């Protein structure tokens, strides 16, 4: 079974448009480069906590011998990922909070 992997990044930010621009650019670069586990991202705004956002990044299996979590770990070591994370620090307030999940159920599989 191909189990997807998800990373969430919780951030505080006054202007989410900067994050959206960064995510858009990231998606464009990923779409036109060699395939890896990254599938796509959602950016969610907290309705109760103004300025609180969650970036939800999904990873999937592209090689039957490599898990989605391992694909994400590989992604984590890439220079462009490091650069993106460093830039994120410039547009958010405080430190981001990371969480990691294995997908165990999805409606539309």
């Amino acid at each position, binding site marked *: 079974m*191909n189990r*997807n992997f998800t990373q969430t990044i919780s951030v505080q930010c006054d202007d989410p448009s900067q994050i959206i621009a960064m995510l858009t650019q990231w998606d464009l670069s990923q*779409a*036109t480069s*060699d*395939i890896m586990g*990254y*599938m*796509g991202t959602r950016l969610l705004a907290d309705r109760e906590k103004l300025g609180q956002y969650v970036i939800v990044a999904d990873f999937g299996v592209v090689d039957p011998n490599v898990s989605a979590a391992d694909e994400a770990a590989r992604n984590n070591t890439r220079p462009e990922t490091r650069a993106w994370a460093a830039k994120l620090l410039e547009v958010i307030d405080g430190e981001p909070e990371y969480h990691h999940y294995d997908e165990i159920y999805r409606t539309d599989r």
Partner: protein
Amino acid sequence: MVPCWFVSSQPTHDVDQHDIHTVTLVARGIATAVAPEDGITEVQAELLEAIASALTGLSVDYRSLEPLSAEEFADALAARDLDFRQRIVHHMVLAELVLRPLPVVVAHRVAKYAEALGVKDDFVRVARRYAQGAYGLAWMDLQRNGFVGHVLDANEEAASAKTAKVRDPFEPAKEDVELAAKWTAFAALPEQTLGRCVWEMYDGRGFDLPGVAGGAPAYLAQHDFVHVLADYGTNLKGELEVFALIGRADPDPKGFAWLATLLGLFETGYISTTGFFDRDTRERNARARGMNQRIADAIRRGKIVCDEYGTDLFEVDYYELAARPVDEVREILRVPVKAEIALESGSVGLFDLEGMSETQQKVYAQRREGKV
């Protein structure tokens, strides 16, 4: 009145000469690469068999072939040029794109076979994204590498061409008085001319002309001339045929993006919308009875256009050709007649009711009764 769908006798084109050993070897490589764990599916086998038969004139049963490793396949095709090997890879991708779900193991294996053949192809990657479930990235990839890059290249190569210049073939239509006037003027051309026939196609179905609000974008409207020249209907099956022909007629292998997109829209649903076409998988159109033969014949016809005319059909200045008889334009563009097997498999003509969608049929009937 001579109907526009009348197709006069045209030169027949024999398929290229092939030997059964080579055709079987290629089929073994493709079948091994694209087979899911339970074996090649009926849809895959029927489509691949039809394509092999249309292009080579030889029949191979894809269900009962001995496996061929990627290395053996690469050795077998070592003497072939990159264009040939890339077209073979596209046949593999085509057999992937009719699968939903597309198993990761298949998409990964096809990538390995393509790599062994020395082919780095964007469509292999698009298929891998489908298998992964990354549909958004897949569409971005297909747009940017399959269409936009290709269209920009074509624009640069044909800087003096009179065809529509676009950055994205699916960019929304713009109102354009000059363009609308050109299309309106087609109505006054003599019967059986390309312009008159394409105008009748629009008028009979109630389509808004390019250039007016609600009309097709100028670039995409180019494909409507091919509906006339190739005599394909305008329902979803007809669209699959016309884009299979256009895609293969393109000397640039990136033309395969058209068929890949139409399959994503009208067969598997991997693509939700292109802005102009929207997903419609109520009927699985590529696996419908006879469609394997119809798509295969469209690919065969496209290959002949590619070999003998050698220009992307989206880059043709149809406005320059509009006043000429359809048969004459067919001869200029080297568009061959349909194969008998395609006709027997239900490939109807542009003005046959069966070649129209339900909505188009209703409008057509109303127009004939003078209600619209």
